[in-house]
């Protein structure tokens, strides 16, 4: 009888008591916004689940998603790989190469038909018959479609797989496309960001294992639990925005005092991500805390919305073909007005309903800046 180490055993082995383990499970349940009754389900899952196979493919990408993944502090990636999933194919860390590597994909497809997860980092290019990304002598697109054919669900890691990201920026010379444009018959969970936050990545995986279902997604396919709010909604510098205290120039007095970076081009007001709540690298900081505005890296097409230093948020009708300065002139008023209006709404809410200040419901939040709804 093969023995498989469960999450519970991992924790016990690391000297964590059963009492602490149960506490961990109820905290996890609460953090995910579930009823206390779900805690028992979490305990059950953590104690008994065998490891589900994961095939992690790489297309056109920079490997920042893999690098982010191994930074996860809770759970540790060591425990994810040894005890939670079976990471059977991942060309960045796997021992096998060449045909021994490719054989694994066939084996998992056969053995676990309909019962493995396909994780995709990067995306397939369509120009040059797909041969600007070659795996095993063939286009990456073929490997991707074959691995997707028998999977249970797909995780689109990062902005490449979710939206296209940098290689798909104008003029997208390789015709790189997000994976939902080539995989049509499987559920796809988009976990955008360049890269996504490590603990968000491991949380998406552990959610799938724990609850055996796909997390609730927004209309664009992102888990609401991490992408339901804008960075601006929960930014610790938000009071300075509301008070009209802004950094005006790099390294000025406002910068040293930690004022709002909106005027330096911060895209926090239009970016849906968990950076200002989960923060980065086990909560050490996030871009705004370290003095640079958000560049909006989890948003679709963020490379083509004008300079990162214009306080302009572009809408999709403005391509890079339009002069970014002209777009700026046209759009700055609109968006500035929208953000200002939002600030007013916030201020009003603060007076009328203090409990909801700063929160925006996933459904309504999309409307407030007037774009991308």
């Amino acid at each position, binding site marked *: 009888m093969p023995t*498989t*180490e469960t999450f519970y055993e991992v924790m016990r*082995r690391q000297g964590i008591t059963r009492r602490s383990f149960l506490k961990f499970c109820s905290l996890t349940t609460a953090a995910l916004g579930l009823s206390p009754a779900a805690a028992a389900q979490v305990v059950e899952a953590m104690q008994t689940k065998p*490891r589900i196979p994961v095939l992690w493919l790489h297309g056109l990408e*920079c*490997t*920042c998603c893999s*690098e982010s993944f191994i*930074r*996860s502090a809770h759970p540790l990636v*060591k425990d994810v790989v040894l005890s939670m*999933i*079976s*990471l*059977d194919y991942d*060309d*960045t*860390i*796997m*021992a096998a190469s*060449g045909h*021994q590597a*490719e054989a*694994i994909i066939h084996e998992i497809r056969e053995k676990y038909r309909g019962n493995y997860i396909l994780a995709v980092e990067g995306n397939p290019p369509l*120009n*040059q*018959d*797909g*041969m*600007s*990304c070659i*795996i095993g*002598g*063939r286009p*990456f697109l073929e490997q991707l479609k074959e691995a997707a054919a028998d999977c249970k669900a797909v995780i689109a890691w990062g902005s490449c797989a979710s939206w296209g990201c940098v*290689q798909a920026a104008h*003029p*997208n*010379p*390789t*015709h790189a496309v997000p994976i939902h444009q080539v995989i049509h018959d499987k559920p796809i969970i988009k976990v955008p960001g360049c890269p996504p936050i490590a603990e968000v990545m491991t949380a998406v995986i552990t959610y799938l294992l724990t609850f055996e279902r796909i997390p609730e997604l927004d209309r664009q396919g992102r888990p609401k639990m991490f992408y339901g709010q804008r960075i601006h909604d929960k930014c*610790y510098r938000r009071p300075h925005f509301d008070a009209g205290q802004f950094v005006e120039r*790099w*390294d000025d007095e406002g*910068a*040293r*005092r*930690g*004022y709002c970076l909106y005027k330096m081009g911060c895209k926090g007001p239009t970016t849906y991500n968990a950076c200002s709540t989960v923060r980065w*690298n*086990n909560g*050490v*900081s996030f*871009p*705004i805390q*370290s*003095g*640079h505005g958000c560049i909006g890296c989890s948003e679709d097409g963020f490379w083509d919305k004008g*300079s990162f230093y214009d306080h302009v948020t572009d809408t999709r009708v403005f391509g*890079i073909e339009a002069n970014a300065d002209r777009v700026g002139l046209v759009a700055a008023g609109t968006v500035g007005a929208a953000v200002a209006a939002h600030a007013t709404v916030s201020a009003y809410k603060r007076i009328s309903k203090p409990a909801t200040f700063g929160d925006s419901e996933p459904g309504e939040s999309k409307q407030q800046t007037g774009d991308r709804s």
Partner: protein
Amino acid sequence: MSIQTPNGFTLDTSGTRIVVDPVTRIEGHLRCEVNLDEHNVIRNAVSSGTMWRALEVILKGRDPRDAWAFTERICGVCTGTHALTSVRAVEDALGIQIPENANSIRNIMQLTLQSHDHLVHFYHLHALDWVDVVSALNADPKATSTLAQSISAWPQSSPGWFRDVQNRLKRFVESGQLGPFMNGYWGNPAYKLPPEANLMAVAHYLEALDFQREIVKIHTVYGGKNPHPNWLVGGVPCAINVDGTGAVGAINMERLNLVSSIIDRTIDFIDQVYIPDLLAIASFYKDWTFGGGLSSRSVMSYGDIPERANDDSAANQLLPRGAIINGNLNEVHEVNLRDPEQIQEFVAHSWYSYKDENKGLHPWDGVTEPNFVLGPNTKGTRTNIQEIDEGAKYSWIKAPRWRGHAMEVGPLARWVIGYAQGTPEFKEPVEKVLTDLNLPVEALFSTLGRTAARGLEASWAVHKLRYFQDKLVANIKAGDSATANITKWDPDTWPREARGVGTTEAPRGALGHWIVIENGRIENYQAVVPTTWNGSPRDPAGNIGAFEAALMNTPVAVADQPLEILRTLHSFDPCLACSTHVMSPDGQELTRVKVR
């Protein structure tokens, strides 16, 4: 039939062809083909870059102040080094001087990357070429403990510690789900470590995986996140405020202490775990002297880690600058990135076309037109390649040359140049390692030498990290809190036309970005990266590249298991996303730069 290459290798394609695609445990996508003679010795080697993303053409028309963010996404493994190279190129073009604090913080960022990247490469990308994971199951934990304690003071070395790791590994293997270790080459006779050394290395593979995420928190403090921290033309984005109110958003005493404590722990990990492991493993592979390739002949480094801000002279760089050719260590040549005669790229064997493919072009003169064609001796089809024809075009990587020479770049190149220049901080550690292992200096020019140089460099980098963090604090104490120079932030202050070069020594080697700015926008952008040098295909004269050269004449124990091929390729730490180039969607001409 055999062919003599101008750079001194005899290629013979008569034997059995072996194909490795994909080459795993690298960044990006690489294919390798070799011919084995009747004794299973490699007599011909072909390295083919199998991806490109065309980032440079995407940069055309953009704001130069944004370029760091685009180029940073060239590679998420060597994260930050392209961004630094980019802001340097823009500052060079526009004549922007940066504050001393910005120089120190940039050095801290770059040295953090060197320390982290080398560590992760050794344990997570390279170790499985030397370490047999399955053999660790047969180790005696007590003997493993004795071995570990004999080479290091690292405290996690008790028999119980190793027994625990072994039990976990046992349960993992018995589960039948081998995860990343599935289909590995376990039991291959080219593995030489005793079970105890294997168990020690597996334990440290896992410890290093836990620890590496600590190192990058330094990037998070100064750059807000890792991978892909934030940068700024003119300085760094993080302000310093050690006295005033509102310091939560700026570098203050708590932030400085956090960085300092991470540096201390990283010094311990590298000096007490990485370096002793490296030497222990090397001692069992002393007889495996293969993989030298170009390292004993032609190596190059641009230099990096400027002691003072705004001084690009070679004397101001703590990592050496220079080129050695034809194996003459007595002469280190000057390298000038602006000289059109020195660095040139060729495409005769790359999937691009030039008007005259016998000639090379300087990056400021770069022309890139994609031309995905396969040679007449290709086996298979256009979208299902069985064997490539290296007589024709066979790679998405161009062939850069320095004064016509194929060059090796990277840690070994830097340390060979530092050694040749007689710089004590490079020469002494090299001599100590050679003495400890009882090896001649020639042993340096090998796969193992490349791997050892990377370890020495990780230790060098983490101690320099301490130096620049202390320097930053001393400068703040002296009353200087400046982190950015904004006098040329506004594009209205820029000349109508400008061009610049930025360089770094990335973990994998010499990295250069060339930029042309016109009317406040990027007119042309070219990156020549370390893996373009090392992974280069043949040039029109027939010189083979560094990967190809290093594979030559290596015996392979089991023809069907590419363990030795991986070992040597991995010793370069290949990064293929970096080595890709510009193209146009329909083959129309792009990015032609007029040199003024």
